[in-house]
């Protein structure tokens, strides 16, 4: 177990590539923390994980474990466990031998291997199939074995998960996630969990790190990410539907969106161009008489509530409405000014309460 620090880490896959997959990151992961790395596909999450585990050597910067520079060390020397998106099993070995593989390679004592393997088998609920050949398992079970190989060493510096539950059946997903959380509470490994699924990230981690285009745009608890997105991307990515982002201008204490004035009820220091308002669909009320006049484009019933898609000039605004609420023909939106966030060039400049 160790704290992990990235110092000015940047990576590009070819020297001729003008774009960095990971963009000059400084990041500190505390010993024993459970972190989720959340972001869309291609934002550099996997690259970052591979840099930590040493599968990739960063173009620039340092990887430091507990104050010791690991940048030049190979994966084998870093003592990291990593679970990949797609199952990797050693076909000719049995389930138990697969779990024992990382321990055998590192020359653990026979008794210790046996007890660790039994423990992980119990954890995965696969004791009865210990002797079964791994190649005969289905995809779910193969991924459980991959997961198990990540958990079998108790002395690892960190366990990295790269979207490990992508191929797993939904009901098993929930169960395994709960198991992982329990394992974390019990053994206190530093865990970094990469995912593009916000539910997965928010349920697994104490701290969620949101990545976008090779950079970390926000680190925080699930609640912070929801209430105060530091970047419009975070607002749009987290929540369903995501935060509405509306281009606006500031005039005194009012925001002007497509000619409509919205009173902010607070002094705003921001000025200039590239200003945007951020408001969650949860914080807008649909009204038949007062507010900003909009056109209703679509009404989606998502089960627990309705999502009303509206349009104001060129801009889309989603509103969450309780089931059973009548949808007015001429709709108006009442926006809670206290919940409005103001962004400039995509970054938060003035947060609501």
């Amino acid at each position, binding site marked *: 177990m160790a704290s992990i620090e990235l110092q000015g880490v940047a990576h590009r896959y070819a020297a001729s590539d003008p774009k960095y997959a990971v963009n000059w990151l400084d990041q500190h992961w505390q010993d024993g923390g459970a972190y989720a790395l959340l972001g869309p596909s291609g934002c550099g999450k996997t690259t970052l994980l*591979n840099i930590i585990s040493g*599968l990739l050597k960063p173009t620039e910067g340092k990887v430091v474990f507990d104050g010791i520079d690991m940048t030049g060390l190979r994966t084998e020397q870093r003592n990291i466990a990593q679970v990949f998106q797609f199952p990797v099993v050693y076909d000719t070995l049995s389930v138990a*031998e697969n779990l024992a593989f*990382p321990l055998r390679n590192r020359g653990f004592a026979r008794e210790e291997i*046996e007890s660790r393997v039994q423990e992980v088998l119990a954890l995965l609920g696969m004791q009865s199939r210990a*002797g079964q*050949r791994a190649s*005969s398992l289905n995809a779910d079970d193969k991924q459980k074995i991959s997961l198990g190989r*990540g958990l079998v060493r108790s002395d690892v510096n960190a366990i990295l998960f790269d979207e490990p539950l992508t191929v797993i059946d939904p009901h098993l997903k929930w169960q395994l996630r709960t198991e992982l959380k329990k394992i974390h509470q019990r053994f206190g490994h530093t865990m970094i969990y990469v995912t593009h699924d916000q539910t997965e990230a928010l349920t697994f981690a104490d701290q969620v790190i949101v990545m976008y285009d090779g950079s970390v745009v926000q680190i925080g608890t699930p609640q912070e990410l929801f209430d105060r997105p530091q970047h419009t991307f975070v607002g749009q990515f987290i929540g369903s539907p995501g935060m509405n982002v509306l281009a606006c201008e500031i005039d005194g204490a009012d925001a002007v969106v497509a000619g409509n004035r919205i009173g902010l009820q607070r002094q705003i220091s921001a000025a200039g161009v590239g200003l945007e308002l951020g408001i969650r669909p949860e914080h807008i009320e649909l009204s038949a008489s007062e507010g900003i006049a909009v056109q209703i484009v679509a009404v989606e019933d998502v089960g627990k509530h309705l999502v009303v898609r509206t349009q104001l000039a060129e801009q889309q605004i989603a509103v969450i409405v309780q089931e059973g609420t009548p949808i007015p023909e001429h709709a108006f939106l009442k926006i809670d000014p206290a919940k409005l966030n103001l962004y400039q060039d995509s970054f938060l400049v003035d947060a609501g309460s």
Partner: protein
Amino acid sequence: MKIHNNKAWLLVLPVLILVAISAIIPLMTVVNYSVQDSFGNNEFFWVGTEWFQEVLNSERFHNALQRTLLFSALVLAIEIPLGIVIALAMPRRGIGVTICLVLMALPLLIPWNVVGTIWQVFGRVDIGLLGYGLANLGVDYNYTQDTLDAWITLLVMDVWHWTSLVVLLCYSGLVAIPEVYYQAARIDGASRWAIFRYIQLPKMKRVLLIAVLLRFMDSFMIYTEPFVITGGGPGNATTFLSIDLVQMAVGQFDLGPAAAMSIVYFLIILALCWVFYTVMTSYEKQAGTGAGGGRYE
């Protein structure tokens, strides 16, 4: 109610006719010869299994069979491991891949009799580069007179000619292994040997099966090259089944025994291929039955 339409059989007819013309009819003429004797004038007499008994009990057949089996065993023992090693050493990306693949494919493009002629000349002590060179180095090498030299020449030639095939098959198996397996192995701290033993070899099993079967069949049926290089000699030292068979059928015109021998020859190949296939795929069949157990060392 189910309607059976037997006209569907007509669709199989073209294939049936083709197979009949290309395989079954020629094979049946051989079967026909193998149970009859002829004294010319197109007159045939039924002799039953006499020729089969004669072939199976003849020392000549036993010797030729032993030579052929030994040759195939040596070919497999050299070419399969060598092919795997070369495939492992080949580059995975860049210009080197193309260069290697072209160089590897070259020997495979040369016709059998040309390969034989190349080595026949190459090994000659009077004018051949290899033979002349070895003689000048003081090595007593002469494939036309020395049994061991003849065998070595044939084996080296076959390795030169066909190892590429094994390499190409293994290489195709290796490049098909997803990168994530190697990453997982690094995470698991696997040694180079463990990576080979537990990732590369299992993933190559299918192509290796093909390589073993092809190399076995080809080497067991080898004819052209030894015919050109040694002509079966010195003495009978390199008279393999195929050479023996041709001598019997064309040289001595013993159609009956030659036909019986052909069938026995064919059945041996079939049986050995079945054995190879069964042994190499047996692992997969027992996969679901809990083989392996909890071994940790």
